[in-house]
């Protein structure tokens, strides 16, 4: 009985590992897509990236730009799918990490020839966050030294004038 239990646990982990590998293999990078546009044109692809910039709602759809670290690609998403997106990547925040399954278009006829992906499914794989900015002490010290130097230059200028 115990052996059967061990076997079940081992099989469960094998299943999980294989499942994650198959997901990972399914994800296509932006470089791969952009360099092989004709190969992927019209095919369903899985792409993953960080939401950057504004999520731009256009009636029943929205444009979400996903950056995988190399390039950003525009994703045309039904509005109902974007409710999970909370953080948009910018200087002050790390955007949500999203995995999208959809049809890749080399030159989308609907969107004036844009290279885009029309999303069919969207899954949040990582949550974004607000980035807290800490004062860079090195920069502060340099600034102090420069301020003193600038004051000396200004005093020197005034003295010479006097």
């Amino acid at each position, binding site marked *: 009985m115990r052996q059967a239990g061990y076997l079940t646990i081992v099989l469960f982990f094998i299943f999980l590992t294989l499942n994650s590998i198959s997901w990972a293999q399914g994800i296509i990078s932006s470089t791969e897509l952009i360099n092989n546009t004709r190969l992927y044109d019209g095919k369903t692809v899985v792409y993953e990236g960080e939401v*950057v910039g504004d999520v731009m709602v256009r009636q029943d759809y929205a444009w979400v730009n996903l950056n995988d670290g190399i390039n950003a690609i525009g994703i045309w998403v039904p509005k109902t799918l974007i409710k999970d997106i909370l953080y948009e990547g910018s200087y002050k925040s790390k955007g949500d990490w999203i995995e999208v399954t959809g049809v890749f278009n080399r030159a989308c006829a609907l969107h004036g*020839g844009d290279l885009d992906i029309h999303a069919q499914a969207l899954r949040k794989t990582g949550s974004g966050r607000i980035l807290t900015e800490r004062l860079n002490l090195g920069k502060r010290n340099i600034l102090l030294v420069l*301020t003193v130097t600038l004051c000396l230059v200004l005093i020197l200028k005034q003295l010479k004038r006097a």
Partner: protein
Amino acid sequence: MILKPHIDDIKSIGYYLAKIIVGLGLAMLIPIFLGLACKEINPALDFLIGTEIALIFGLLLKKLCFTEKDLNWMQGMIVVSLSWLVAMVLGAIPLYLSGHWKSFLDTCFDSMSGFATTGLTLVQDLDHLSYAHNLWRHLIMFIGGQGIVIVALAFSIKGLSGAFKMYVGEARDERILPNVIDTARFIWLVSIVYLILGTLALGIIGILNGMNPFNAFFHGACVFMAAFDTGGFAPQSQNILYYHSLAYEVTTIVIMLLGAINFKLHYHLWAGNPKEIWKNIETITLFITIMITFFITAIGLNQLNVYPKALVLFRKGFYQLISGHTGTGYMTIYAQQFINEWGSLALVGIIIAMALGGSTSSTTGGIKMLRIGIIFKALKQDLKRIILPERAVVVQKFHHIKDMFLEDRQVRSVLLITLAYLALYGAGAIVGMFLGYPFLNSLFESTSAAANVGLSCGITSAAMPAALKITYILQMWAGRLEFMSVFTLIGFVVAVVKGK
């Protein structure tokens, strides 16, 4: 015998250079205010450091080189060429401190690209760059587009008869108003009025496109500055593709074309003389060359069936073409698509458009329309001379603000500058090929750098060899200043070394 420059030459150059350095330092106050308003503390520190370095150097140089003498031609030209190099280094400091560039050389590359209104970029992770740094990237395009010296002329240097020498050194040889300082101020007035209108238009489109209002107007201002000054930087890594908007594309096309028009024509438009625009040799030549280069590009795209519909082909092809022809460099496709999809013929169309450029006394780079128009008029004149009887007096006229007779002296000067541009495009392409890049890619990128365009077929990246980065920096600098002030600086250095 080459004469060694006198100490007075160096003092005059140093004094006026110092004024420009101080002006540049003060310009950094704008991103400081934005950084503080947006609570971006470290970016504000970066610009405070940049400002203070500029002020320290500027004030010391001003003190050391104080003179009341006016500039002569040589000194004026050298002040201009040095100003651009100094501006590149000073402008790069706050950008480098942001940590978004891999090396100081990369930052200098982007800084020169900004000031020279090129638009090629080596920035990393642009989508997370602060508002302050992003504003600076676009502001340096606005300053560089009008001309660094024009800024100084308009705001700080008063009543200087040597001003015209610096004005000419910055590749503007036409005075719009009798006084060169009034001309500089007019250029700024035009630019600021258009900036307000353009920002409003793009901001409203941005909001309608679903952007948040602050971002919409911030992007509007940045994109306007880069489009009107035919620069090509954008606040996001996808460039204009980020907006996914036909309205944004149409508006930027209008702004790019406005930027490619001679400021003298803007003056006539403002003065209620729109007829000039239809008669002027530059606008006629621009219209013809746009048609020809678009025809070549469209045939190339059609041959390879790159786009599924004619309307889509027009939207993509025409946008990249206008962007290339006006020297802007805005893109609605990815850089790799040029090489992987567009094919040789379409690329040749874009390369020709980039090489030709926009109007003289505008913010564009390249050979420029007045020169192309004059070359064709000269060709026509020579053909007439062959066809008509020997005793016939052949006179060729052209209209540029007023009716003018074509003179051989003019043609010679035009051909020399054209030849210099062609040599510059070729030299960069040879360096690219020497470093292992294919011919067409090298020529595309070299032309883009030298004509201050900014379209890229993928060569420009942080991973490209340092030698190529330096080559492109030099091309952007020489191309923007149209050679004369650069040649004068080289002559000056030779005189310092070899003079007696």
